[in-house]
């Protein structure tokens, strides 16, 4: 087998200050499943986007069958037989399955109109040929995440690609959906397709792939055969040091109930019920984790607690203060909140660090609230410096724009701001999403320290391993309901995965 695709000396930088790939060379062979692994920010996705033509490398070349090629768009890559399924699924929810599949390569009638009959037939034929279980006329907005991923793959098969790039395909799946995907991928390999598989889940990588390439901080560490390596070795290559795989057992007794939600229900714009009678308690000195496939009510739960959505029924309270219909400001007297999306909800990127640091404090913190009108920007700067010192933020001056900070430092400022509010209840929505390893570790440590200091913490995370290593109890959400609420010590990844997917206990075997 010869090198089918060769990437040579690829270097890619992002203005203003990121070097994403540094002289990376790697080759792929026909008919293999080749995993590319690395931590967040190691450059896996960037490398694949360069190959796919979505990004242009600053230096280096791509060779296909020994001939150098330069893809200037995804179209070029697809024409050459290379297709990519992105980490965030890129489909149009308003369109049906077949419309999504043919978009960009539509069959036409003699008059130049869209030949929807022919398009539908072609899609139906591909679905049958690869044994996918999909309805071509279903609107994509109404099918499951796993089904959407299949549509993405189908889109590429419709274009007759021979290489499929999958960017963290299992990240959006529950543990139970993963084996099915792997089976389909093996079937595709048997059909002669080459599969490039990006992941940071080492068990999956070892199970599925033939060869593994490890990236670390934009550089290639090595390419090894999956059969001749181990999880520990891969982890060492990824992180550059030995890593311990161990959870952190909770050894303490939680105190009084701090946060309580009772029978909380909520509907969306279209009157569709999104939260159904959610009842939940979080005690002082306890971390409760919310697990669930994305879109099963976690978003609505957070929004109801923080006050962006009014509940249709039920009651919320913190330490006995009824917050069901309170204003957001009133809630913030009791709740510290780290939002999922830093740039959309957690900060203003164009404001200075100091201006970001004093949000909420400007009304509730003694230092600022003493004066009725004036806001002392020197005090704000001093406060930002305090956040920097207490939370190890790497920044030069408080009047720097917030966007100049790295993602990890931005999150530290936000976390610091919220923790300095000194509230009994912490609502943390995906607090480590998109952070590098160091910052993730830091945020997790802070959570445990807050727990030990007697705060009640509600942690929403799509990373099950994170929940299992931090939470004392895990509540599983399914279709807007809490279908399980169980001490972490009494459950397993598989069981939680089953609840997430099915909404009920696995039937006894």
């Amino acid at each position, binding site marked *: 087998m010869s090198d089918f695709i060769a990437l040579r000396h690829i270097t890619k930088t992002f203005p*203003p200050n990121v070097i*994403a790939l540094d002289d990376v060379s790697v080759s792929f062979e026909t008919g293999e499943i080749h995993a590319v692994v690395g931590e967040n920010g190691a*450059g896996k996705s960037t490398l694949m986007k360069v190959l796919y033509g979505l990004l242009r490398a600053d230096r280096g070349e791509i060779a296909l069958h020994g001939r150098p090629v330069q893809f200037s768009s995804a179209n070029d890559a697809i024409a050459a037989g290379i297709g990519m399924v992105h980490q965030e699924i890129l489909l149009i929810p308003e369109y049906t399955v077949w419309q999504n599949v043919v978009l960009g390569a539509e069959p036409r009638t003699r008059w130049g109109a869209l030949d929807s009959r022919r398009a539908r037939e072609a899609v139906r034929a591909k679905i049958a040929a690869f044994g996918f279980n999909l309805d071509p006329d279903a609107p994509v907005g109404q099918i499951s995440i796993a089904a959407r991923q299949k549509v993405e793959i189908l889109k590429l098969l419709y274009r007759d690609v021979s290489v499929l790039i999958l960017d963290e395909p299992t990240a959006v799946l529950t543990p139970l959906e993963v084996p099915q995907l792997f089976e389909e991928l093996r079937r595709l390999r048997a059909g002669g397709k080459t599969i490039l598989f990006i992941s940071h889940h080492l068990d999956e990588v070892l199970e599925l792939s033939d060869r593994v390439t490890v990236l670390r901080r934009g550089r290639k560490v090595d390419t090894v055969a999956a059969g001749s390596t181990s999880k520990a070795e891969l982890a060492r290559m990824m992180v550059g040091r030995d890593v311990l795989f161990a959870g952190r057992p909770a050894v303490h007794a939680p105190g009084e109930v701090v946060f309580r939600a009772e029978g909380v229900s909520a509907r969306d714009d279209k009157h569709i019920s999104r939260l159904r009678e959610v009842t939940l308690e979080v005690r002082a000195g306890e971390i409760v984790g919310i697990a669930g496939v994305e879109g099963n009510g976690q978003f609505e739960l957070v929004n109801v607690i923080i006050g962006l959505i009014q509940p249709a029924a039920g009651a919320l309270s913190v330490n006995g203060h009824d917050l069901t219909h309170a204003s957001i400001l009133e809630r913030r007297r009791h709740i510290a909140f780290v939002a999922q999306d830093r740039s959309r*909800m957690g900060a203003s*990127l164009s404001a200075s660090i100091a201006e970001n640091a004093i949000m909420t404090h400007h009304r509730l913190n003694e230092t600022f609230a003493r004066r009725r009108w*004036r*806001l002392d920007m020197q005090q704000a700067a001093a406060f930002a410096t305090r956040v920097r010192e207490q939370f190890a933020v790497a920044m030069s001056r408080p009047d720097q724009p917030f966007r100049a900070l790295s*993602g990890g430092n931005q999150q530290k400022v936000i976390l610091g701001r919220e923790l300095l509010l000194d509230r009994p209840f912490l609502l943390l929505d995906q607090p480590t999403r998109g952070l590098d390893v160091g910052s993730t570790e830091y945020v997790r440590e802070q959570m445990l320290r807050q727990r030990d200091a007697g705060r009640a913490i509600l942690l929403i995370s799509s990373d099950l391993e994170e929940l299992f290593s931090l939470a004392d109890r895990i509540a599983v959400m399914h279709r807007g309901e809490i279908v399980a609420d169980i001490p972490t010590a009494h459950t397993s990844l598989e069981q939680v995965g089953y609840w997430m997917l099915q909404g009920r206990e696995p039937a006894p075997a």
Partner: protein
Amino acid sequence: MRQKLFAALASIGIALGMGALILLLEGRQPFEVYGALVALSLGDADKLAVTLKNAVPLVLTGLSASLAFASGPVNLGQPGQFLMGALAATLVGLSIDLPAPLMAPLLMGAALAGGALWAGVAALLRHAFNMSEFIVTLMLNSIADLFTAWLITIGGPLAEAGALSPRSPAIASGGRLGDIGAFNISIVVMALAAGAIGYVFHRTRPGYEWRMAGQNTLFARLGGCPVNRNFFIVMLLSGALAGLAGGLLVMAGPYRFIRGIGANYAWDGVMIAVVANSALGATVGYGLFFAALQTGALGMELLTAVPSEFIQVLQAVIVLVSVAGRGYLSALLDRLALRRLTRPSLDTRADTARR
């Protein structure tokens, strides 16, 4: 700060160059034309005084637009709010006669209220029914224009008896703003208003909340800021500034409401805010600059026979060049910063490539 100043000067330079090109194509002498422009707007104290007086409505409507844009509301209603402010000042000035120290503040108050009221209609519709203030303020502009035109039309309820052109009678003398030396008092009022707005916006808690909401409403809302109430207040304040512009124009100039009183300032406020990127300081600067252009334009026509409308084209070119230059310049600076960074100290770069 210095970069921004440099960018602004560069854009103006390029725009003037393009204007010169247009003049050359028409067989004129650009230096002569620009020279006349400067000489007749800034040449001596009297001309400077005229320029500053002409700057009053430009700076105030510019601040009205900048304050709104930087705080969130898309208030494009300066033309209408300007007219309603001018109308309110005229109405009060026609019906009451007090000594000047009482009368002038009273008329200014009326102008502020008139503008705020008209903006308040849009704010209320937004608040109660979630109607986009962007289109509502535009429609209210046309309605205010037609309504005031009807009031002063010959034979209309507010028309001056026997006048040959559409205009109201003159306001009581107490409401007329005189000069200090060569300089009209309305210039002082403008400076005070600009200072007050700048202080509130940059040094107070409400100003902080407005700025944060203007940059990211959801962030401000989750941080506990009463964004809906702030929206309302900013709309009223923005309308009041535009109204004050209209009132001062009546009080400093013709002392009456005449047809087309706001026509020259219709979109100038929004234009200045756009060029200034909604920064208050820059708004004042560009307001003065455009006032100099417009003041010099009339003299330029007399001296060089270049139609004064040339200035409108020049202004539009300045807007386009500086707006486009802003995006280009920041990309350029990013690239330069990267080049400095690519060599040493690669430790921090890991954090990174998720895009």
